[in-house]
């Protein structure tokens, strides 16, 4: 019995709780991705790099003396116009081509490579890290959890809830969903569709930037950090249903638990193959994902 309690306290429970904090982190990154895909039908390959830009902005502003709490507002506010410009300046130009999926995918992929190299030129290749904003740790029934991770879980869940509320419960959200469902009908009813598109893309980019601010103290900052979460985030989006916020949350938390618990049984090297197999299986059995698409029945 004590052996099991020891196992529970030191291995199982911490594993699930740290899995939860990683899950929230992944959902934060995947959220912008799924919204952009659900609405614009654009697979944003540069999403990871926007996450990196957010982290670097937080890092340099932090070193310049801006407090972490202000960064949570400033960085998304800076990313918003950046995302808007990218959508109007680049994506809009190829958006109406017949092979939209291919062209936007290649465009954003190329953009991601450029951004990554620009970060390398400006900040150098070495890893950097902002200080952890909240230090210390608390003891929850014998399980030790750093305060910042607890904050990350709670704040992340609040952000996710707020985004879900805006998309599903507000008039703005209704406009966005209408434009996603049938752009021509929405346009004829007076919805400025192209503005809605650009605004939504910018919103998704701002979410990536926010994720960068939140995760930089935990996972450190370096030019190729964008690739870190992007595969996991794509897997989450595909399993959850492309464009579904609910699906992203459920799939994100589920998959990270699978990862956390499976690494207790098999070597952690297998956790990526296991996740990607789940994704492949999902694409074969239920291509629309756990939940349907945003704005679709």
């Amino acid at each position, binding site marked *: 019995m004590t052996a099991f309690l020891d196992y529970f306290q*030191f291995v199982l429970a911490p594993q699930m709780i740290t899995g939860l904090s990683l899950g929230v982190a992944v959902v934060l990154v995947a959220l912008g991705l799924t919204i952009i895909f659900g609405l614009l039908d654009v697979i944003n390959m540069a999403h990871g790099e926007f996450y990196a830009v957010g982290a670097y902005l937080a890092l340099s502003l932090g070193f310049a003396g801006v407090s972490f709490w202000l960064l949570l507002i400033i960085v998304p506010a800076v990313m918003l116009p950046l995302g808007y410009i990218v959508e109007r300046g680049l994506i809009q130009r190829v958006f109406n081509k017949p092979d939209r999926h291919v062209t936007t995918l290649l465009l954003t992929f190329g953009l991601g490579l450029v951004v990554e190299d620009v970060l390398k030129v400006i900040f150098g290749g070495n890893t950097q890290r902002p200080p952890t904003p909240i230090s210390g740790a608390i003891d929850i029934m014998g399980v030790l959890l750093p305060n910042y991770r607890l904050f990350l879980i709670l704040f992340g869940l609040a952000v996710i809830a707020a985004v879900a509320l805006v998309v599903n419960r507000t008039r703005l959200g209704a406009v966005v969903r209408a434009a996603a469902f049938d752009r021509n009908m929405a346009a004829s009813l007076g919805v400025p569709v192209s503005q809605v598109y650009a605004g939504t893309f910018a919103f998704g980019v701002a979410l990536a930037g926010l994720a960068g601010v939140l995760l930089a103290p935990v996972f450190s900052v370096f030019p190729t950090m964008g690739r870190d979460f992007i595969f996991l985030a794509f897997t989450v989006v595909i399993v959850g249903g492309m464009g579904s916020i609910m699906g992203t949350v459920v799939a994100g938390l589920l998959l990270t638990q699978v990862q956390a618990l499976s690494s207790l049984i098999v070597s952690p090297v297998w956790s990526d193959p296991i996740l990607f197999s789940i994704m492949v299986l999902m694409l074969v059995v239920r291509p629309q994902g756990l939940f349907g698409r945003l704005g679709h029945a």
Partner: protein
Amino acid sequence: MTKIVLAGLLATTVFTAPALAADPIKIGVVTPLSGTYAPIGQQVRWGLELATKEVNAAGGIMGRQVQLLFEDEEANPAVAVQKADKLFEVQKVDFLTGTVNSGSTLAVGQTAERAGKLIATTVSFADSITTDKCSPNVFRVNARAGQQSAALAAWVVKQKPKAKVFLLGPDYEMGRSTVATFKKRVEGLGATPVGEVFAPLDSKDYTQYFGQLRQARPEVLYTSTAGNDTVRLLTQMQDFGLLSNLLVVGASGTVTSQNISAIGAAAEGFGTGVGYSTQIDNPANKKFVADFKAANKIDPDLYGADSYGLIYFYKAAVEKAQSTDTDKVRAAMRDLSWDTPQGKKTMRAGDHQAIQPMYVVQVSGGAFKVVDQVAGEDAIGPDECARF
């Protein structure tokens, strides 16, 4: 017999002396001057150039000037072999050095055997170069991986006798072999391994191993992660309050100038075994560091120091042999002792591995400080070369 040798020597002197004085001794340097390993190749080059300048200014080797011929091997064994062939066959170099990654050293060693020439590496760590894959034509003047962990293990048990040790390595060849070597060493000195974990390379989150780590209640953690992985491991351990009352030690590439600032306070107290540090307190090293810095505007590192020492090794061997002939120089190199910034090194005849004093360095105030020295004989380990 003596008469014949004497006559031979005399003849050599008489007939070739003018040519010897005019012809420089050529040393080929096949080293990465571009790509990922270029910073290492740069240190190799600076170290060799500084020593060559000093030797030439003091009259050269047996009155002959030393000339270095550089070739870029791009850290690619295939390219290294091609460039080494060119240096041996076309440029007729007397000796060759510079290879950085162990694959290049092993490949160029075979080229040297075919060409009937000698080479030395000043950088490659892999134990195999002077153990199961040893070659009569290959010498190593730098410390191999086993020497570093031997020095570290000796220091760890001195700090914490009968320590409980937890081991964490990246899940690939280097990670597994470093962990296995350190485990064997430290176990032999009375410590108890209480757990080991191999995490995938580029792991995001090390927290998933912290449960096992806490459950094992270790006093010492050994890790051989590198780069970003170390940043995440140590800072996440700090967040989880796991660094208190724990001595963290690791491989020489675990905490470096590239990642130490990102790790910050979490690197404090980290210890590792090294063959060189600019902090080594002896007159030869102080002069070396000052001259190196004056010439290159940068501190020497391990690679610069070992490459610098190599020129003096070759000089001592040629002067002892009174020739640049392969067999004579090989015989002279065996059991040769010579002075370097790291102290006296001795080339072991049985496996062509240099024996040298090893140092333990520990992070204090964001920089490495030398905290202990381990005698060369205690760190060298058995001769495992069976080929010669």
